[in-house]
């Protein structure tokens, strides 16, 4: 481990403790009374704790619907958590979002959204889209300066300044994603939440974007929460990786450790499912079984219906995230040494 990382790991920028987000998806009051149903709550995120050091990257991986985006939204203040707190630079982030100088605070945290098309206003030209944060935070004065800055930002993500007058629908998927990255970078944030920023990009552009992000991290000490399905990308980008399953963290480890020795059965399945580039034509093992319904998660360890090592305890008792041999993992089997 490099000394730089060591130094920085001591300064925690973002700390989530026992973060939880419930969505009330219950039927309206009268229906519940008449149909004798209780409230229905979807625990999209259920007690997630982690910290990210300044200048470091935490990656979140996991199946679709496991709550990654929800964590991201909690961090940028789009949702107010049902439970738990987010500390940003020592401050309670959600208090700060509501405080008087929320704007100044917002500027420090930005997000790149999952869907490159939906996250761009279809009626705005790219120039407007990218200029909005600049204007909002007063980062550029004068029309000329603004246009130059926008052009600069576009260039930094590999787009031409001459594309400014076009509308989002006139770009390819990858180009759109770059526009949304340009927008996120406009305010020089310290912490960037990236929700699958490269899923729609081809590898060369992906490389550009990832390199860009890394460069920014190096130059400005940017901190990332990085969400991706692509484990190769995750491995390249992150320092630490959290694996989520049905709203909970099941494993949180240093990336090398995680890839070298995945502990949790789900992590193992995930890594097995990665397509191998160099041996073409070989079918990989897909993850078995269907994702359980998040509204009625299985009792005990929520992974047990798909887990080959599940036993009676797994079916009844919910495992807690514990540090086992330097890795945080929530699994009875690992704890008992069965795997």
């Amino acid at each position: 481990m490099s000394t730089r990382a060591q130094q920085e790991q001591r300064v925690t920028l973002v700390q989530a403790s026992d973060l939880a987000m419930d969505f009330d998806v219950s039927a309206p009051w009268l229906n519940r009374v008449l149909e004798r149903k209780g409230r229905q709550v979807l625990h999209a995120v259920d007690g997630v704790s982690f910290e990210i050091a300044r200048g470091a990257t935490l990656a979140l991986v996991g199946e679709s619907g496991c709550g990654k985006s929800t964590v991201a939204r909690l961090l940028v203040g789009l949702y107010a958590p049902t439970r738990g707190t987010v500390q940003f630079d020592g401050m309670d982030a959600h208090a700060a979002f509501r405080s008087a100088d929320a704007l100044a605070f917002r500027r420090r945290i930005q997000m790149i959204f999952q869907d490159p098309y939906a996250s761009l206003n279809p009626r705005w030209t790219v120039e407007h889209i990218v200029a909005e944060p600049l204007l909002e935070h007063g980062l550029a004065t004068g029309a000329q300066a603004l246009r130059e800055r926008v052009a600069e930002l576009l260039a930094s993500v590999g787009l031409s300044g001459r594309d400014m007058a076009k509308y989002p629908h006139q770009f390819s998927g990858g180009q759109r994603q770059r526009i949304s990255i340009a927008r996120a970078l406009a305010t020089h944030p310290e912490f960037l939440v990236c929700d699958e920023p490269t899923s729609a990009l081809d590898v060369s552009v992906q490389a550009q974007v990832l390199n860009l992000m890394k460069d920014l991290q190096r130059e400005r000490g940017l901190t990332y929460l990085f969400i991706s399905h692509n484990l190769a990308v995750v491995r390249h980008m992150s320092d630490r990786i959290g694996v989520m399953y049905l709203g909970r963290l099941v494993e949180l480890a240093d990336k090398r450790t995680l890839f070298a020795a995945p502990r949790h059965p789900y992590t193992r399945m995930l890594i097995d499912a990665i397509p191998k580039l160099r041996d073409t034509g070989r079918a990989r093992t897909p993850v078995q079984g269907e994702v359980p319904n998040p509204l009625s998660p299985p009792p005990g360890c929520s992974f047990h219906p798909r887990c080959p090592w599940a036993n009676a305890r797994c079916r009844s008792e919910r495992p807690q995230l514990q540090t086992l041999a330097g890795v945080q993992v929530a699994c009875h089997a690992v704890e008992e040494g069965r795997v």
Partner: protein
Amino acid sequence: MAETSSTPAAAGVARWLDSDLVHSFRTSPVAVGAALIAFVCLFCAAFAPWVAPHNPFDLSTLELSDARLPPAWSEQGSRKYLLGTDDQGRDILSAVIFGARISLVVGLASVALSVLVGVTLGLVAGFRGGWVDAALMRLCDVMLSFPAILVALLIAGVGRALFPNANEGLAFGVLILSISLTGWVQYARTVRGSTLVERNKEYVQAARVTGVAPLRIMRRHVLPNVMGPVLVLATIQVATAIITEATLSFLGVGSPPTAPSLGTLIRIGNNYLFSGEWWITVFPGAMLVLIALSVNLLGDWLRDALNPRLR
């Protein structure tokens, strides 16, 4: 880009002239035609005293003996009155021009007001949700049950009770208010529906993360994306408002009979359809159709032009 133009203003104009909107306008004959008609209507209405051959609102110039003359080209017609006269001896041509003035003001103002109120409330209801939404929607239900006629009577009654010495200005205020009071509901509902969809889209969330204030998000992001149906309704509503104005004037709420609006002219002329004095209603009617057509065609064009995906 900068080197082609000398001053920033000229550059601005040049860029504007080169913009897609202007271009699509220039290439659409329908839009140009409609704009031309609209312009002529607006011009005539705005400069009515100079354009019209007579001043039909100046009672002292009316001659009862000239009442109900047919258009100039028919046998009994008089050169003095190109399109004939009505039952009071008003020159129809001038009356149409002056009447259009009133109708345009009332029509445009009431639609503008109801769009303003309706869109705002709809946006707020859709964006805030919860009890604000529920309350506003119930308010809509309540408002829907009141026909414009009744609302006008009520408002006029209240207005008169509060300001017994009211002048015409108030009368117009009452008109505009009562037409928009029943008109805004449609906009509110439509906008609310679309807003519910739009507010969950990621571009809105992106703006929130950027720190854009909710009001600004509503205005700059959500609004343009929900305006499509609003434009359809609004352009149609201009004509309806003009007609409603006529009905209300009849009830004694709006413009006095000595200063008839287009709608009033049509309504009065309507009484003379059977007796053969068709010109009293046909010319104002044609004017109204012309105004409605041009507004609607412009609206159609604008809606399509403002939607970048249709270009």
